[in-house]
């Protein structure tokens, strides 16, 4: 018997209409755990590097994490992986909710989709019974509406449904996959789903997920539950309320929280307005925010990209690069304009067709100076609308090198800014059991808001690399286990950390693993992802945060940071993993392939 994982994937070829249940190789679990790591392995092995996002050969993988479906609190993530139409690199977007556990209960670790269906279809996975069903009656329906329709027609209120809206059907480059109250939004995974002619995947499962050492595993879970209660009762002092507790910051959980209202930029990421609302693009109020967010969710678009794309279009109009003729019939008021634009984009009508490719590609197509207004993308993808003052070396590295291309899925654990007083720092490190090494406490103790030991030169280059490495490692582990970052890699002092994870994994799977082995797996997954993107042409030149992300930039320091980070990772100075590194991680097949393609030279590392 396999523990924690099921040991079977569902392989669907929509071109041929075939459905296969395929046993997976258990040795891969030891090498990659599951989730993101397993997806990366599949993408490397099975999708040739020149495959276009909208190609029959591109795979769309819905993976559960290794711990999903067990009693481990918070193990719920679905990891969606494919090649992104927008960045043209590997996309891995994730969602919470109950879809992944349900898939495990149905008897599968992953659903791997190839090909394209000539007609719109949806997939119905009901334990052993799997059907490709007609979805023509769902064409044009909202993502949430679709889920409701499917549950009703299947008479299965407990089915979990992932679905796309109009944006996905029309291959909008920033289309999302919506599910429950969560969504896999980033990098256009919804567009690939639409390209495959797949409207939704509904799942119902009533089988067991087994663990190897039940009593031990349950003790660990109980410990986490107790820690959560205790931690929630003790918010971290001296930081904004939103980051003081556990979980991902929910904007509406604390209605007076400053974090989102005071930090983010409005419009096309231009100005900062300290008011209580989240409708940053339209400069409007909360009521408008809810109304347009609801429509955008039904259409299925990414909440970072979509508002910025629309604001970008309006900036071009104001600048005279686009004209009124490009916006026929657009209302005059700000709110009306945003609704109008959203409707055009998801239908790919007129200017909407250009904008539907996202800011980077739209700017290229429009030309005439439009590219100067593309000021908030990295690797061709819209970032969080944030612009800051002083360069923070840790964040510089995370923005530049993050393969997720989304800062919130890279950062965490280490405070975002220094505590003002030594006493506060001493207090903070007292119960900081989460650090992988005592030196991290010293980094924090010495970090000052002002003076010699402050940003951008402190944390030092070396310390910055260490901090990034730790944060990244935790995210890579979470993404392989399917753990919610809100209980692990994202908040300060979380219940899961590098010291208790090995015990969880061992008790759940029966595969004995220690801290250094777990670190090695995280590194293997991280490096494989890098190799996939390198094979598709990504290089150092692409690792560039937006020009004005910080007002104060330090080119020399930034170059040093990147050099040191690459070196620590075992990559060459162009961000390409060296032969020696790949060998150490058991990835010789990767270096052979990269060598054949001339990406790494013979004499190299």
């Amino acid at each position, binding site marked *: 018997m396999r523990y924690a994982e099921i040991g079977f994937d569902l392989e669907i070829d929509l071109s041929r209409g075939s459905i296969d249940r395929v046993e997976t190789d258990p040795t891969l679990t030891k090498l990659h755990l599951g989730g993101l790591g397993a997806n990366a392995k599949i993408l490397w092995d099975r999708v040739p590097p020149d495959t276009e996002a909208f190609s029959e050969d591109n795979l769309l993988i819905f993976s559960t994490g290794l711990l999903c*479906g*067990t*009693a481990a*609190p918070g193990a719920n993530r679905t990891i969606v992986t494919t090649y992104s139409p927008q960045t043209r690199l590997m996309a891995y977007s994730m969602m919470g909710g*109950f879809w992944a*556990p349900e898939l495990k*209960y149905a008897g599968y670790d992953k659903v791997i989709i190839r090909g394209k269906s000539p007609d719109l279809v949806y997939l119905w996975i009901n334990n052993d019974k799997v059907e490709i069903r007609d979805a023509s009656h769902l064409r044009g329906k909202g993502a*949430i509406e679709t889920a*409701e329709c499917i549950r009703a027609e299947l008479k299965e209120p*407990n089915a979990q449904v992932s679905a796309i809206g109009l944006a996905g059907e029309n291959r909008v480059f920033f289309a999302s996959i919506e599910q*429950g*109250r969560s969504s896999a939004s980033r990098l256009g995974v919804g567009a690939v789903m639409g390209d495959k002619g797949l409207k939704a995947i509904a799942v119902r*499962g*009533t*089988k*067991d*997920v*087994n*663990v190897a050492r*039940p*009593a031990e*595993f*349950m003790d660990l879970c*109980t410990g986490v*539950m107790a820690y*959560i*209660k205790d931690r*929630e009762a003790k918010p971290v002092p001296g930081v904004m309320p939103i980051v003081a507790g556990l979980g991902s910051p929910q904007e509406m959980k604390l209605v007076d929280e400053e974090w989102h209202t005071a930090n983010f930029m409005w419009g096309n990421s231009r100005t900062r307005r300290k008011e209580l609302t989240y409708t940053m693009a339209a400069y409007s109020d909360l009521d408008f925010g809810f109304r347009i967010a609801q429509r955008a969710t039904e259409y299925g678009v990414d909440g970072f990209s979509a508002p910025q794309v629309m604001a970008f279009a309006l900036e071009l109009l104001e600048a005279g690069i686009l004209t009124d003729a490009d916006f026929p019939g657009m209302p005059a008021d700000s709110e009306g304009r945003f609704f109008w634009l959203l409707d055009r984009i998801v239908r790919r009508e007129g200017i909407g067709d250009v904008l539907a490719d996202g800011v980077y590609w739209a700017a290229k197509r429009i030309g005439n100076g439009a590219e100067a207004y593309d000021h908030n993308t990295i690797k061709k993808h819209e970032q969080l609308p944030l612009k800051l003052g002083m360069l923070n070396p840790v964040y510089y590295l995370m923005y530049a090198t993050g393969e997720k291309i989304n800062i919130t899925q890279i950062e965490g654990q280490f405070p975002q800014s220094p505590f003002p007083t030594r006493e506060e720092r001493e207090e903070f490190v007292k119960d900081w059991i989460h650090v992988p090494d005592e030196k991290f406490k010293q980094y924090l103790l010495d970090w000052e808001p002002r003076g010699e030991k402050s940003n951008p030169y402190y944390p030092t280059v070396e310390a910055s690399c260490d901090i990034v490495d730790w944060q990244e490692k935790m995210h890579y582990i979470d993404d392989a286990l399917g753990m919610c970052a809100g209980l692990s890699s994202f908040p300060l002092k979380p219940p899961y950390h590098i010291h208790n994870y090995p015990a969880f994994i061992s008790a759940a799977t029966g595969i004995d693993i220690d801290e250094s082995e777990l670190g090695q797996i995280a590194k293997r997954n991280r490096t494989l992802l890098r190799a996939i993107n390198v094979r598709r042409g990504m290089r150092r030149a692409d690792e560039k945060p937006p020009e004005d992300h910080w007002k104060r930039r330090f080119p020399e320091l930034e170059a040093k940071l990147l050099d040191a980070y690459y070196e620590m990772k075992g990559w060459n100075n162009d961000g390409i993993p060296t032969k020696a590194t790949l060998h150490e991680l058991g990835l010789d097949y990767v270096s052979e392939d990269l060598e054949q393609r001339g990406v790494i030279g013979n004499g190299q590392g």
Partner: protein
Amino acid sequence: MGKVKKTIKSIKIVADKCNGCRACELVCSAFHAKPRYSSSNPARSRIRIVREPLRDIYLPVYAGEYTASECTGRDRYIIDGKEYSECDFCRASCPSRNLFKEPDSGLPLKCDMCEDEPAREKPLCVEWCINDALLYEEREEEVDEAVVAPGDIEIGVESLIDKFGLQQVLDTIARASKR
């Protein structure tokens, strides 16, 4: 019939505090797995959440008695603007729905307050509800002397009889006992 003192275990369900996290479902199914905690599967849980996030409905319901036939009339309730079916509040393992039945055998499930041997002092679902939506209470009551409550096997057999008829069940038991 004489009166005796009895400890009544009960759980106060503060539905207003439930956020639909389903931790209670998960841990209940793990508790009743054989061996204990060896698997999880919410479909086997003896507490289920009626969960409709879009309508802001999160309602924990415990598995109660087995019933052979569904009700004829089923009313609908509107509470604070939210509409519920009568079944949403009902604890029955009932032919009208899949709830509270073993997924493989279809045998009825019933909350036993975690008294399955070795028994726990307190219900596990209560301990795992970090939102305090489930609160455990004990009280003493005078009750009529022992009408013995039917055990799991008895309820199971009764449901089999309802489903297949007495003769078929007897035949099957006779066959099985010869094996």
